[in-house]
């Protein structure tokens, strides 16, 4: 009952005209960002964060805008997968397998609307999952002391590595790099400056928004400059959509698929570090094993479109659970959203639910609203979003770059921050070439201070005894999961990842 009352309060907040307007704007922009090849939820949100700040929006409205972008981009990712066979980002990869063959059979409209419905089902069920699971997780989190929190942060980094890259050493390197960047600035406990090289601008530490926009948005521009000179992705291709609504029989056929994969995707999203890519992959694989008796998966089977889309949208919702309840994001984009919360002086974690219930419940209500808006927007208006795909990158990328600059300059008005952002852009470009994942860097920059503070508090409370970190059953359990999370992918992770790419390549090759 209390849940429903809270949710009611949330809707009262989310249903103000300003918030509805922001949700609409976020859904629209998010779908576009997701649809454009190369841009996905994390860089979509990254580009728009500084704007939310410069507009001077409060905590709840900013969050509503940015989570609408997040959900919108998860919806939009399927459009270029289906029409062009180019996934906008990794979670949308599996949708290419059956979505593009369907489009080739002249069923692009049906594939788009079916995947829109699957996205809705996945995200809708995951939002309920969030409501039911997050408060339970908060109860466990209340048992956490500094030592347990330190172990939890370690767990987040160690499990993140296994999924975000095939190379554990590179993930560890990226995490350490991010943590190192977080130590720049005046030490909060003792007040001594660290790694500032006497530069006054660095006394406050690196602004993680600057790092995020540089790493995600600007590096994308450099990649385009390097690889797609004069190229356009969609221009010149004729995109026909055809019928906009799927037949009832197709919906009936795919309903069990959507329900099963929503559940699976949600679980994948809740696991720290796993996120939406894994959600769509295991959803597709499981569904193929379970129902593909005739071997039609990969040739344009509607169930093969519904499964990954329900799975990755459910995972997107699931990833919000640890982010809100523990302050440990479950995916790259939720790491970016965590940055938003921290920049708004809101600390996610168990106290968030008791101290800022308006933020939590307003956000959850907004997720429901955004989800309905996206469904309404994505089926009849899909033709409009498709036209966006025709904008060539040579026009789009300058706009992306300039908007990133405006956002950062609008927050700080400082040239120094812009130069740091360019530096991060170059670094992001180089690291992407070397296949070093960027998400652990962001996570390290974000969580570094909290991690260090918890470490120092834990050891100081126990009079300098470092074993205190491994003292309670809870922290031992967390360390154990962390180690399993780090070691297991060494054995199976690379295989899963390789299979994921191989399957796309193989089946993509057949359909082309």
């Amino acid at each position: 009952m209390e849940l429903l009352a809270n949710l009611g309060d949330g809707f009262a907040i989310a249903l103000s005209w300003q918030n509805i307007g922001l949700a609409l704007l976020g859904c629209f922009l998010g779908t576009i960002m997701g649809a454009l090849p190369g841009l996905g939820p994390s860089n979509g949100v990254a580009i728009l964060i500084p704007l939310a700040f410069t507009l001077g929006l409060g905590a709840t409205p900013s969050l509503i805008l940015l989570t609408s972008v997040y959900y919108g981009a998860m919806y939009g990712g399927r459009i270029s997968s289906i029409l062009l066979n180019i996934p906008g980002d990794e979670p949308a990869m599996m949708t290419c397998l059956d979505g593009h063959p369907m489009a080739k059979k002249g069923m692009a409209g049906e594939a788009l609307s079916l995947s829109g419905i699957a996205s809705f089902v996945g995200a809708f069920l995951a939002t309920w999952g969030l409501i039911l699971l997050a408060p339970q997780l908060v109860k466990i989190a209340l048992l956490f002391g500094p030592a347990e929190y330190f172990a939890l942060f370690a767990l987040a980094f160690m499990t993140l590595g296994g999924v975000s890259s095939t190379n554990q050493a590179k993930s560890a390197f990226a995490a350490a790099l991010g943590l190192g960047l977080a130590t720049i600035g005046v030490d909060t406990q003792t007040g001594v400056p660290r790694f500032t090289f006497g530069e006054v601008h660095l006394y406050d530490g690196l602004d993680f928004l600057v790092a995020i926009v540089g790493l995600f948005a600007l590096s994308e521009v450099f990649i385009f400059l390097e690889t797609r000179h004069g190229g356009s992705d969609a221009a010149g291709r004729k995109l026909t959509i055809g019928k906009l609504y799927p037949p009832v029989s197709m919906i009936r056929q795919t309903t069990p698929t959507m329900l099963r994969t929503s559940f699976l995707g949600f679980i994948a999203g809740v696991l720290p570090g796993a996120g939406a890519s894994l959600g769509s992959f295991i959803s597709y694989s499981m569904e193929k094993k379970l129902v593909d008796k005739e071997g039609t998966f990969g040739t344009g089977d509607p169930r093969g479109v519904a499964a990954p889309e329900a799975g990755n949208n459910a995972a997107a919702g699931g990833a919000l659970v640890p982010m809100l309840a523990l302050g440990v994001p479950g995916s790259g984009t939720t790491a970016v959203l965590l940055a938003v919360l921290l920049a708004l002086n809101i600390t996610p974690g168990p106290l968030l639910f008791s101290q800022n219930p308006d933020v939590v419940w307003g956000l959850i209500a907004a997720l429901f609203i955004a989800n309905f808006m996206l469904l309404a927007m994505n089926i009849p208006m899909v033709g409009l979003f498709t036209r966006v795909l025709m904008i060539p990158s040579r026009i789009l990328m300058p706009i992306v770059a300039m908007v990133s600059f405006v956002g950062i300059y609008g927050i700080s008005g400082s040239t120094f921050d812009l130069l740091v952002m360019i530096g991060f852009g170059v670094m992001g470009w180089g690291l992407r070439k070397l296949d070093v994942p960027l998400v652990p860097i962001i996570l390290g920059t974000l969580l570094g201070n909290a991690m260090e503070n918890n470490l120092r508090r834990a050891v100081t409370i126990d009079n300098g005894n470092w074993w205190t970190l491994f003292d309670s059953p809870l922290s031992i359990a967390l360390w154990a999961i962390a180690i399993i999370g780090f070691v297991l992918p060494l054995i199976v992770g690379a295989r899963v990842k390789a299979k994921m790419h191989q399957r796309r390549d193989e089946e993509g090759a057949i359909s082309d």
Partner: protein
Amino acid sequence: MSDRIFGVFGIILAAGYVFAALAIEESFLSDAVGPKAFPLIIAAILALSGAVIALRPDPEPHWPAMARLAEVAAAVVVLILYAEMLPVAGFVIATAFAAAYLAWRLGSGPLETVAVGAGTSIGIYVTFHLILGLSLAKGPLGF
């Protein structure tokens, strides 16, 4: 080879980090752990993972030819100039040039280059300054 160089670079980075960490002055306020310990732990992870990367490199990544590399470098220079010129030339002028440069290098023709430059600059100015009231850098001409 790239990974070997990268790994060695990681180790050097870790060494520099240790060096800088040891130079942090202790404060009279120090706690049981102090401001040096956490950076030293990070340095250890950095060095260790750097060593693993160097010893077990991935297959060589696809590096672009010199010409494309120069392309990226030139864009970086232009963006640095843009950041420096923003307070001097003002938002509208600086942005028009930077956006036009990027459009040109990404393959736009002369007409499109001018259109993208002017369009991006004016579009952002109208949306963010005139409609949303964001303060952008003023130039000598007052906009």
